[in-house]
Each structure stands twice: as C-alpha cells, then as structure tokens.
C-alpha cells in the first residue's frame, strides 16, 4: 500500500501572538501569524478594515514563537521565528516575489519541542539590537543583531544566559532606550524543592523577576537583578521607556507589567512597585477561590502616550494605563521617571485570543485562540478585526488606581487586594469590522452524501462552548462552507428521518437538547420547522418513521404518533413516571419507564399504535435497549430484547475512545494502547480480544479500511494504517466458540496476534475523525481526515507501481530543492514519532 497525502484545507487556527510590522518596507502595516505549521502574512486594509491573506507558506515544522523587529533607523521590519527545528531564523518579506526569504538560520540545539532547548519564548529589544530566546527550563540565548558595512542584517553567535534548575514562565524585552539591551524573565528555581522531602522548600519556592543585561561593550550577558515577585505571576509586558531626543522627556517609566493571578504589578529595578487588582466579572455563581489570569496582552504607543490592553481568560479586555512624570535635575542633564499610579478598567469583551495587535489605523486584531462563530453574523471568525470607537476615556466604567491603596497596593504583597467587580456588557469601545473564517477546532466530522449531489458533504462539529457551530462543507475546487446553523445549546442526540416510508431521502434532522427538541428540514438550506407535530419543549429519546406515512417521537413524558395529516395521537406516561429509554422499528415501540417497567406498543394494520396490556417489570432501571428491524412481510420482529445481552470484556488497559464493527468483528480504539481486534462469539456469548498493535498509540479516531485493516489518528498528530494477517483473520472467524483464541498464548504481554504497520505519516494536527469515502461519484475511495486545528486532508491510495515510483522520486527531488523556511528537516518532521512510511507528502512543491 502506498498513499498520497493531499491537504484539502490547511489548519486555520492561529497559534501564539502575531507579529505586527511594516514587512513590505512601505508604510502599510502587516501582521505575520503562525498557523502552527504554516506562516501567514495578513494585510489589513487601513480604510475598510478588511483583512486579506497575502502569503502563506508551509514550514514543515511547529512554529513556537515569532516576533518582529526593526534595526535602528530602518524602515522595514523583519520576522524572527523559533520552532521545533532547534534553529532560529530571521526572515525578510520580499513583496515583489511575494515570498519570505531566509536571511539567517542559526542552529543552537536539537530538534523537537524539548524542555531545555530554547525556542519556546522569544523577546526582542525594542530598538532591534538584540533578541533573547528561552526554553521552558534553564536555557536562554541572546543574539546581537546589527548591520554590516553594506547595510546587510547580521546576527552574532549566541551568548548564554542559562540558569540551571530554573523553570521559565515568560521573558520580555525591556525598553531602556539606547542603554544596554535588557531582558526580563519570570523564573522559579526548583533545586531546593527537588531535595526537600518535607515539601517545605516547595511551599517556600519563590517566583523571581530577573533582569538580564546584554553588555554591548563586553559582549556578554549579565544577570543584573533578581527579586521575588507574586508566586502566581504568568506574563510580562513591556513598558515604554527611554528618553526622547527632542524634549528630554521619557517616553515612559520602563520596567515591566507583571500579570499575576488577580493582580497586575508594575515593576522596575529598585523602584517602588504599583499593584492593582484585576476586576472580576460580577457573577454570584463564580468560584471565589479561582482567580483570573491574563492570557493576551498588547501595548500601544501613540503621540507620546501609551496604554495596554490586557485580556483575561474569560475574554474581557482591560485597559491599563500608567501615570508617570519626568523629574529633571535643574543643575544637570540628569532626569528620572516617577510612576504616580497604575490604573485598570474594564474595556470590552471579545473572544479569548492567542494574541492581540493594535494597528496604527485604529484597528484591533484579535487572533482568537479557537475560531468560533460570532453571535451576530453568520460568517465564522477565527480572527476578528475591531475598530476602536473610542478609547474608553469618557465612560462610566469604574477605574481602579494603585494610588488608592496603601503603599500603591504593595503594603502586603502576599495578601490579595480586596476583590473588585465589573459587569460585562455588549461592545461599547469597539466595533466589529471583519472576520476571518476558521473551522478550528473540529471536534468531529462525518462525510455523507446527504443532499444526494455529485459530491458528498463534510458535516463538521466545530468550536467549543457557547460559540460552537455545526457546519456543512462541500468538496469542490475549494472546500467551502455551505450551511451553518446556530445551535441554542449542545445537542445530546441527533436523528435524521424520512417522512414517508417510500421517500428516497431523509427530510428532517432532529436535534435533542437537555430541555427541548429542534426539528430542521433539509432542502436547499437547513431550516428550522415548527409544524411537524413534534413536541419541541422536551428532549427526544427516539425518532422513527413508522408505518407507511407517520412519524413517531418518544420524549420523557410520552409517545407522539404524528399521522400524515399532522394529527397527533399521544400516549402519556402515568403520573410520576418518565420514559428513560426507548427503542423503535417500523412497527414496534418499546419504552422503558423510570419505574423499571417496559411498555410495548405495536402498529396494527390500520396504522394505529396499540399498547400491549402487560407491562414487564425489569427489576432495575433500563439504561439502553434495542429492537431489530421488522423482517419484510412480517408484522413484528419476533424477539423482545432477550434484552441487553450481558457480555463484557474488561481487558482494555486505559479507556475505550472509538469503536467500529464489521460482522462479528469489533475494533476497539484505546486511549493509550492503540487498536484491539475483538470478535463476538455468539455461541459462547463472549467478546474475545484476538489481536492488538505493537506500539502504544493514543487513539483519537479510527475507521476500518477493510475487514483486516484499520486507519487511525493519534493525539500526537500521526495518521497510520495497520493490517492484520489474513490467515489469522479467517482462522478466528472459523473458530465457532472462540475456544481456540482463549487457548492461545499471549505474545509480548498482549494478544496472541499483532497487526502490521503499513503506512504512517505525521499530519501535525490531532486527527479528530477519519473516514473512508469516495469524494466523487464513482471515484476511487480515499481516506478523509479532519484535524483539531481545522485541517481537512485526504490520503489517496496510489494504484500502480509506476505511480509510486514516479511520485516518490519526484518528492525526493523536490525535498532536495525546497528547504523548510524554519530549518526543519522535512522528512524528519513527517516522521516525528515514527519514521514516515509509504506516504508521499503532497505539500512538498
């Protein structure tokens, strides 16, 4: 087997903070964003506020951090990207050729997202003279950026600023004007907690704010200053500093904002601190023990003033300002800045962002971390562009200032300031201008030809929480969204049904919610219908097209039999009882009551639903049951289910996440231990595991490709195909009781037989669904998968040996020609966890 991987839609999630700058070298501001495995240049139109994508490039690696910088006196911004390649790259955008050119690529460590290999955090000096990259633990490197005689950008060899046994939460470049470049880091030392069995050292561990100074004269980095700060600090924000040449005034007080749980602190070396509480949402149901943290920040400078927008994990934006004053010494040129107060107020609420950018033209770019549907519009937004209506200067929102607290809020730094509250409200300072579509996150998807057109449609469950969407995509030149419907909540069950027995297609989609039922009719569009005779004020337990032309709805308080002329016959449950489970077929209905009784109904020849007089007590409450379809020409199915065949197998190691069946064969996807082959032996009523996989894989989705073969996706972004030997397969099927399987000896602490890996490929996105489909009528069957970050891809089998030879050779040559933009080895990226096997990467071009 050999496959060709073709991506129908690349990932649409934005990962991490975007970088803003004039990358084309003209006055137009642009935004560079990471889409995880792709780098994209966006250009917002300063007049209309519409965002257009100028360039996207696959990088064949994982982008972890990116930042823009500009050399002093320059007019063009460059992008620095760190990734899992163990290399730092400096990119320049070439507007003529519309490509990113790699100016520098410096190797410093191993590939992969490792704990002590720098690349997780990236901070640039505001004057563009140096960049610091940091790992999650210990390692920090500083590179000096400069120009050579021919005005080309140069990068130095790295200077180490390591601190062993230190966990790093964040780093930021400190604005010190033209003094030696300075970087601030939030660090925790674990060496003592690792040695102290009493746990006291762990409790006393302090989070340190450390300033590192790059001495440009001596060409080394010194640990200049380190002081304990709030133990729940998570982010640092740059504060403007440095002295303006004309007036001698300072642009700002320099230092950093430390975002902590529930507090914001302004701090600089050897200056008194200022602290304000982060206002909480006015919510009586909120957990008082749970604090609020800041997840995205942006600082904006304009005409000598500056402000910050900080976004909480709830999506609330806070405007933070610093009141400061330049104090000059009358006799000399000496001057310093004094911070008078730190102020915070509620600004507006937008979707929780991976990063924020403020454009000079007055737009706020919100790269929301999960692209969800906006409530007002029908288009879908991953990223939103908002226009500032005003800056929240003249509204009634309360403002909290550090100057109102004793010692500017730092009287007792270990005690929280009294909680303050605000009330969230619709947008007041911002106006939605544009949205960019995104499927991220795709939780699950199914491919069906629901509308009976030439190509099947992809139905995807996207988003999370209150901003979830159900989307229909049609495969064509582009994968495009055709129908999107807002759902009032999370449906807990979905049915589709015909209206008449002889209808060729299903016409209704019935969604059941906790407190109601929604009926959608399928046509050119999907629309809600209310005249179906279905009860909409209660959840639905079962739906059935019954008899020739009637419909049936089972809800907790009764059974509605909707006749063709919309007359409704309703059977009501006796008072005090409810239906807990139901099963139906074309002529029969069985309902289980909360009193652990079964009620049986049957359709007579006139089309009337009649209750069978005896109710069968079951002893305990029924959880689920099933009745078989009515054999053709018969009035009823002969069994009544022999309910719930008691048969179980508890041998699965962690948790079962996926199930597929074919005949008596069941494939069980385990959360950690790949896929198990199980057979059901009716005569001995046993579920027996007869084969498993050799490698532990964290299955997220799987499908049967044929009776012996399965394709699956795992949590780490791989998709793979494994097959069981045909002789084992038939041997198991021929064994009538399963005694042979039971007698077999386990192999390698597992089942007796093992599957063989046929193909594996690293997609770079968590595969949330995989299905074998034919995308064009009569076309070859392919595997279609969806990824959490919005990827939709296919694996196309190559049919002839010539094709395989040609395409693999072509791929090999293309890989030689094209190098990854971030310096990752393409082949090793596609074989991230296991070497890539029998899959051709369709993205290499």
């Amino acid at each position, binding site marked *: 087997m050999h496959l060709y991987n073709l991506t129908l839609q690349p990932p649409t999630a934005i990962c991490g903070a975007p970088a803003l700058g004039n990358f084309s070298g003209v006055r137009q501001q642009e935004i560079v964003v990471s889409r995880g495995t792709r780098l994209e240049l966006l250009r917002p139109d300063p007049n209309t506020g519409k965002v257009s994508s100028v360039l996207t490039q696959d990088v064949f690696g994982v982008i972890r951090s990116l930042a823009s910088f500009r050399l002093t006196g320059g007019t063009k911004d460059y992008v620095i990207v760190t990734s*899992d390649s163990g290399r730092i790259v400096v990119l320049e955008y070439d507007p003529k050729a519309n490509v990113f050119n790699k100016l520098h690529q410096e190797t410093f460590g191993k590939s992969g*997202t490792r704990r002590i290999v720098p690349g997780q955090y990236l901070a640039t000096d505001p004057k563009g003279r140096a960049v610091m990259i940091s790992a*999650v633990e210990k390692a920090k490197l500083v590179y000096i950026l400069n120009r050579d005689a021919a005005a080309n950008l140069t990068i130095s060899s790295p200077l180490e600023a390591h601190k*062993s046994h230190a*966990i790093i939460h964040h780093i930021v470049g400190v604005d010190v004007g033209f003094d030696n470049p300075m970087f601030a880091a939030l660090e925790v030392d*674990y060496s003592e907690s*690792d040695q102290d069995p009493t746990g006291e050292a762990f409790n006393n561990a302090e989070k340190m704010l450390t300033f590192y100074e790059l001495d440009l004269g001596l060409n080394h980095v010194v640990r200049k200053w380190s002081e304990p700060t709030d133990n729940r600090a*998570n982010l640092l924000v740059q504060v403007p500093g440095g002295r303006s040449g004309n007036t001698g005034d300072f642009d700002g007080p320099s230092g950093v904002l430390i975002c902590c749980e529930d507090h914001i602190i302004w701090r600089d070396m050897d200056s008194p601190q200022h602290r304000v509480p982060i206002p909480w949402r006015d919510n009586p149901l909120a957990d008082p023990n749970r604090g609020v943290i800041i997840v995205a920040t942006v600082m904006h400078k304009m005409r000598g003033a500056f402000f910050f927008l900080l976004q909480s994990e709830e999506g609330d934006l806070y405007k933070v300002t610093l009141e400061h004053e330049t104090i000059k010494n009358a006799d000399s040129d000496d001057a310093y800045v004094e911070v008078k107060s730190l102020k915070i107020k509620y600004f507006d609420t937008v979707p929780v962002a991976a990063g924020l950018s403020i454009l000079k033209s007055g737009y706020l770019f919100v790269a929301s971390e999960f692209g969800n549907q906006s409530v007002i519009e029908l288009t879908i937004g991953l990223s939103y562009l908002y226009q500032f209506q005003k800056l929240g200067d003249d509204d009634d929102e309360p403002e909290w200032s550090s100057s109102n607290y004793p010692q500017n809020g730092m009287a007792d730094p270990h005690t929280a300031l009294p909680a303050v509250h605000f009330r969230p409200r619709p947008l007041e300072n911002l106006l939605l201008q544009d949205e960019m579509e995104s499927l991220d996150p795709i939780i699950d998807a199914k491919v069906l030809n629901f509308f009976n057109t030439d190509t099947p449609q992809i139905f995807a469950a996207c988003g999370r929480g209150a901003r979830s969407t159900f989307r229909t995509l049609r495969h064509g030149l582009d994968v495009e969204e055709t129908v999107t419907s807002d759902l009032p909540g999370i449906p807990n069950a979905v049915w589709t049904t015909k209206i008449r027995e002889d209808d060729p297609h299903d016409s209704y989609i019935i969604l059941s919610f906790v407190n109601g039922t929604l009926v959608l009719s399928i046509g050119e569009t999907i629309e809600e219908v209310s005249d179906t005779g279905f009860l909409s004020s209660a959840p639905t337990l079962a739906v059935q097209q019954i008899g020739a032309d009637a419909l049936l709805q089972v809800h907790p308080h009764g059974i509605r039999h909707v006749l063709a002329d919309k007359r409704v016959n309703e059977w009501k449950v006796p008072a005090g009882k409810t239906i807990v489970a139901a099963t139906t077929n074309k002529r029969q209905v069985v309902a289980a009551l909360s009193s652990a009784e079964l009620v049986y109904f049957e359709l007579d020849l006139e089309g009337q639903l009649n209750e069978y007089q005896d109710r069968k007590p079951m002893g305990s409450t029924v959880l689920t049951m099933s009745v078989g379809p009515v054999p053709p020409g018969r009035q009823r199915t002969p069994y009544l289910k022999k309910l719930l065949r008691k048969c179980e197998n508890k041998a699965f190691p962690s948790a079962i996440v996926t199930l597929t069946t074919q005949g008596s064969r069941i494939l069980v996807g385990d959360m950690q231990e790949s896929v198990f082959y199980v057979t059901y032996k009716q005569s001995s009523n046993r579920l027996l595991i007869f084969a498993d996989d050799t490698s532990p894989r964290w299955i997220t989705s799987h499908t049967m490709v044929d009776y012996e073969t399965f394709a699956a996706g795992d949590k780490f972004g791989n998709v793979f195909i494994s097959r069981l030997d045909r002789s084992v397969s038939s041997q198991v099927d021929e064994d009538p009781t399963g005694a042979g399987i039971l007698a077999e000896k386990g192999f390698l602490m597992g089942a007796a037989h093992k599957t063989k890996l046929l193909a594996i490929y690293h997609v770079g996105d*968590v595969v949330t669904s995989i299905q074998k489909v034919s995308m064009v009528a009569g076309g070859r069957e392919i595997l279609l998968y969806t990824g*959490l970050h919005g990827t939709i891809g296919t694996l196309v089998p190559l049919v002839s040996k010539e094709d395989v030879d040609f395409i693999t050779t072509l791929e090999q040559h293309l890989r030689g020609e094209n190098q990854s933009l971030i310096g990752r080895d393409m082949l090793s990226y596609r074989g991230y966890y296991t070497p890539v096997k029998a899959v051709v990467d369709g993205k290499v071009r």
Partner: protein
Amino acid sequence: MSSELRYTATTQTEHLHARYTGTGHADVTKYEWLTHQHRDTCATIIGQPTLASYLAIADGESIGRIKFEMTERMLQPCGPPPAKDDD
C-alpha cells in the same frame, strides 16, 4: 544533592549531565526519573500548539491557562521527593 551530580565516574559524563538536564544514568532513582518524565511531558504540551489546544478543549479552559498551570506544575510534578535513608 541529586544522584546525577553524585555520578562522577568520568568528568565527561558529569559534564554532559550538567549540560543536558534530564539525561538518564545508571543510578537514577525512580523519583528522579519520574520527575524528569513529567517535566519533559509538560514542556512538550506547552510547546506543541495542538496538544495545548486539545487539553484546553478537554478541560474547558483557555490555552493560556493550560500553559500557565502546566508550567507551574513543572516545579514539582510528582510531589516531594521520598525521605532519604540515614545511612
């Protein structure tokens, strides 16, 4: 003192262990090994955008919160070390 630094068979290995935190060796204790594993896992989840998103969706939290708590957890992912024998 962690067992890594006690492991001074050759200066070269000693140097490597000091440089590459988390490298295993013959005398590693169960606690140290487990702590290294957990710290490595946390670092990977923080660094891989898809894993962070996956966890965020499962926990109903923002990605920022997941990354923060994961970094916090790296301080002592497996509880305090076991008490040492006196001998």
